């Protein structure tokens, strides 16, 4: 087994052991913290498919995170007020069922990612960064000024949505659910990576003209990658909304896009478990440094800077080193 595989196992196990320990020690907040990190990790796993594998530097993934969040918020708010979502042309009721919400969230973000991707992928480089940001900003301002679902005030959901057979209000059970989804999305990412699709996507990042020359369109590869990426980030958004029992336009803000990107880069771009390491480290830092000083952002900034300047390939890169990958 390569060093990276060992590290991945340790990360996966650590992510499970820590909340279990917190559960035994009756520190429910630490479980919540771990849940939060796991959700951000899912968002990062999503972005990593576009950014790490496809080389698509999207500064607009908050769009999908937010769409996922609002899918949950809208469905659940209609369910809690017993008002139908749509009466015409056919009746659509809200729902408090997590699986349904997840599917809607993923479908909605997949469609949005297809639309945004189809337009944005006409550009490249810094222009791509900025056009994805532009689309997220449009949704941000729309969400702020759209009064139906709370506008800037956001939308509180009073009770966490349900999952058959589980009590989702119990922190450890909700964590277990999120953890399982995190592993599932990582498995999807691994599958995508090793499949012919991932092989071609990876090649398209490095040598698009070569991919074209073997009869594969890089544009379509990238668009599909962007859609898969947006779908997973959308799922994370729905989970995040359920964790907080609240959605607001802040989920669409460019800072959110930036943070998801930080998780990926901090952990190690294009590394399977990079987003997991990045999100865990970021949340841990936020938690530990936040208590030290009002000005803890200075230390966070300095630390990020050190990682970028001296630790290429993020945390996973530092720990696992540069190893040739094997499919």
């Amino acid at each position, binding site marked *: 087994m390569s060093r990276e595989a060992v590290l991945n196992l340790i990360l996966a196990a650590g992510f499970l052991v820590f909340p279990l320990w917190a559960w035994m020690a009756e520190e429910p907040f630490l479980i919540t913290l771990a849940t939060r990190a796991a959700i951000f990790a899912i968002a990062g796993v999503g972005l990593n498919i576009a950014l790490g594998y496809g080389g698509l530097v999207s500064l607009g993934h908050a769009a999908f995170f937010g769409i996922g969040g609002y899918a949950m918020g809208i469905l659940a708010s209609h369910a809690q007020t017993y008002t139908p979502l749509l009466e015409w042309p056919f009746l659509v009721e809200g729902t408090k069922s997590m699986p349904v919400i997840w599917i809607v969230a993923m479908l909605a973000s997949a469609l949005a990612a297809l639309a945004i991707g189809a337009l944005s992928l006409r550009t490249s480089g810094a*222009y791509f960064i900025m*056009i994805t940001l532009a689309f997220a900003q449009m949704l941000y301002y729309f969400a702020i000024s759209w009064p139906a679902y709370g506008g800037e005030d956001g939308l509180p959901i009073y009770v966490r949505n349900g999952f058959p057979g589980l009590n989702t209000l119990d922190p450890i059970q909700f964590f277990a659910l999120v953890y399982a989804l995190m592993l599932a999305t990582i498995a999807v990412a691994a599958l995508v990576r090793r499949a012919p699709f991932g092989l071609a996507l990876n090649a398209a990042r490095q040598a698009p003209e070569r991919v074209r020359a073997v009869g594969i369109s890089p544009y379509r590869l990238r668009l599909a990658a962007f859609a898969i990426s947006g779908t997973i980030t959308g799922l994370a958004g729905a989970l995040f909304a359920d964790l907080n029992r609240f959605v607001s336009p802040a989920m669409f803000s460019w800072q959110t896009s930036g943070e998801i990107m930080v998780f990926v880069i901090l952990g190690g771009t294009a590394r399977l478990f990079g987003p997991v390491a990045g999100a865990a480290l970021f949340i841990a830092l936020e938690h530990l440094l936040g208590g030290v000083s009002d000005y803890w952002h200075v230390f*966070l900034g300095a630390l990020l*800077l050190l990682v970028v300047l001296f630790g290429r390939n993020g945390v996973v890169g530092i720990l696992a080193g540069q190893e040739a990958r094997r499919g």
Partner: protein
Amino acid sequence: MSLTLLVEQILNGMQFGVTLFLTASGLTLVFGVMGLINLAHGSLFMVGAFAAAATAAATGSFLLALAASIAAAAAAGAIIEVGVIRRLYARDHLDQVLATFALILIFSEGTRWLFGSFPLYLSIPDALAGPVTLPGGIRYPLYRLMTIGVGLVIALGLYLLITRTRLGIRIRAGEADREIVAALGVDISRLYTVVFALGAALAGLAGALVGAIQSVQVGMGEPVLILAFVVIVIGGIGSIRGSLVGAILVGLTDTLGRFLLPGFFRLFMDNSAATSVGSALASMLIYVLMATILIWRPTGLYGARA
């Protein structure tokens, strides 16, 4: 709606655009020459504003405050170029984004550490206070007219700098190929420090000029940064001319959109619904503009064709 009001709004749009140009020009210069995405540009804008406010409070002189804003931002720019930025030129955009994002955190909270959480006072000098009457009976604030003037002078200055001076030749050569420049015996790293400090100084000056009619507070840089990026992307990254055109386009679109859209929706909606829909659309308008332009021309208006 009177014609005078429309003309005044167009003037407002121009003025807003020129202020945007002040911030965007430094960003596009750095981006064009070094290929660097500098998210911390907004922080340099803030440094300029804070330096100006502190100097104005200490000396009472607006001119000294402007000088201080340029000096402080240029110094901050030179320091971060030597300390951090120059290690990023060879890296990809991702590392640049992350590192300069980290710089934002450090600058913002560092400034709050030094100056506290409360907004600072910075106002325009008495000589420039109040409105003047323009031909056609429009009363327009003198300071805003002056900002338009300063912006245009800087645009001209940058144009001359790049086309007519030795430094400009080196900058253009550096854009083309840094190895050629190095081969010509130019100290490329000093050149980059100078260019970066120049970009920072422009941002600092913009911060002081804008801060005097807006507000000087921590966090003032980020909204400006986003707008500046919108401008340079519309104009085509690296093109000074593009950033001027882009800035004025964004300024006009934003100002006229805010002004005209609610009225447009009033034609077929009730008053308060029109106001709210119109304003919502107006706030998204510049991003719609940017996306449309990029879809039409993927490298901006004056960007190099891929």
